[in-house]
């Protein structure tokens, strides 16, 4: 999955849409939001492991972003900024999830994968879930959404060097789980 999904918009057009949206043009905002739906919901699902919660997180993030659009600095890409908001929204949802203690993951998401494949990824899911929030977001943005390091940094509001450091630390923590996952996948 590349951030430049079909329907992605050029820089000039995006800045024009951002300006219009800041002036209150909801349709311009929708144009900005549309290419972000898939990466944002993928990030949210990976963070929350529940399709319904992930869609709620997207909606709430979209409303927050609309209200805070004035904070988006000129020249800064919308999508990376928005993904940062989605990540924070997911953190809030996770914090409020007392029910997760007794709740199973979303096992019936009408997925195309076989159920066995879902269980094979459980070690990796647990490992990602156990990462500190900042590292988890960094690893998902970079490896799951294929965001370049600069965009990961923008989404996290840190420097590219800082983003690289977080990813490295996360990789170190994930290494055992990835090995298990690979061993399982390789039979």
């Amino acid at each position, binding site marked *: *999955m590349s951030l430049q999904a079909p*329907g992605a*918009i050029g820089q000039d*057009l995006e800045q*024009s*849409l951002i300006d*219009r*949206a800041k002036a209150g*043009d*909801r*349709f*311009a*905002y*929708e*144009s900005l*939001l*549309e290419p972000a*739906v*898939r990466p944002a*919901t*993928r990030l949210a*699902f*990976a963070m929350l*492991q529940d*399709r319904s919660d*992930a*869609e709620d997180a*997207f*909606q709430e993030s*979209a*409303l927050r972003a*609309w209200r805070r659009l004035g904070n988006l600095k000129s020249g800064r890409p919308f999508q990376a900024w928005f993904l940062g908001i989605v990540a924070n929204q997911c953190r809030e949802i996770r914090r409020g999830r007392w029910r997760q203690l007794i709740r199973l993951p979303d096992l019936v*998401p*009408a*997925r*195309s*994968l076989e159920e066995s*494949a879902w269980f*094979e*990824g*459980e070690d*990796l*899911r647990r490992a*990602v879930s156990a990462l500190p929030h900042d590292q988890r977001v960094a690893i*998902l943005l970079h*490896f*799951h959404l*294929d965001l370049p390091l600069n965009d990961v940094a923008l989404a996290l509001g840190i420097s590219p060097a800082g983003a690289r450091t977080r990813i490295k630390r996360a*990789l170190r923590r*994930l290494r055992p789980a*990835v090995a298990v*996952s*690979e061993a399982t*996948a390789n039979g």
Partner: protein
Amino acid sequence: MAEERLRSNLDRAFDAGAEFPDRLLLSRTMAALGRSTASPVRPARPNLKPSSRTMGVLAAAIVVALLAAASGVFLAVNDFTHRAAPAGRPPLRPATAVGLVAGLSAASANDAAVWGPYNFMKANRPTPEPLDSSGLLITHDGGKTWLATGIGSPTAQSDGLGYMGSVSWTDAEHLAVVDNDSIRVTSDGGLTWHQLKNPAPFSPAGADSLNEYRVSGSTIFLSGISGHLLTSHDSGTTWIDAVLPPPPGGWQTGMDYQYSGPFMFGLRGVFGVAQSSDTLIYSTADGGKSWSGPITERGQSLWALGPSDWWIVKPSGQVARTLDGGANWFTTSITPNYSVISLTSIFPTGGNVLWAVANMALPLRSTDGGAHWSIVKLP
């Protein structure tokens, strides 16, 4: 290499399935933003040749009569209290009877316009005839009361249907009307109107097919001439003639093309040109300076809720929708709750309220996303 494996493993571990996210997620989100109260411009019901329109009205009249006979008691008058209009303003007229219309255009859940009204049942006549010369009627309360503008007299045409090219909404207060010989605009919801200078060198008086007028910011679109879309980016001072890529086989002389849009969403927009039972769909990404396409879709009465969220009414009366700019269409569950009527135009507003025209003349409104419909009553 290890990174690629991690990517692959993450994709497998966090695969939410092909149907995720819900295709309506963006629409729901925008509805939550309150877009239903600030709708974009609306396409008019496609112009129909007098013969077709007359047949449609007759068909709708028969449907109304059937519904009345079946129910025994005709549909009850809306329950509302008529409010006195402020001094100096034309009075709002209560909706009291079922009527047929030559056209409908809706801007939001509460704001809509109809023209060429026939108070068929109120007049108690076996065939529809124009009851009065109220012309364009506008409602701002979902059809409970109507403002009679006097524009578009139903006696203006030989068929008495009050022919009107288009009614285009920018928002609840701003409308533009192209009728037989003029372009009129209002900025107070229809209370007062002024006539626009005709866009030289084209004149509505001399162009029978000039039938769409769209305003998006300072941009005005004027369509109706095959293969052309007149565009002004300075509120009508100067005009450019945007040439549309021709459909396969080229533009047909004498073809009665019907136009929908353009619908603009920022710099992106969509424009429909219907011919026979197909619609040629064009899109722009630069505010209308250039247009790509067309893609051809079976159906008419194109409407757009977003840059890639398009609606169309199939010849069968089913409503189809795409959420990816025409790559994939799906049939909605929207259907009239009367088996004797068939939708011919659909006007979604972004929320649960939809307006529609059935059998080319019967105005309908739904408040539950199209599951159930009520006939819109007229003064």
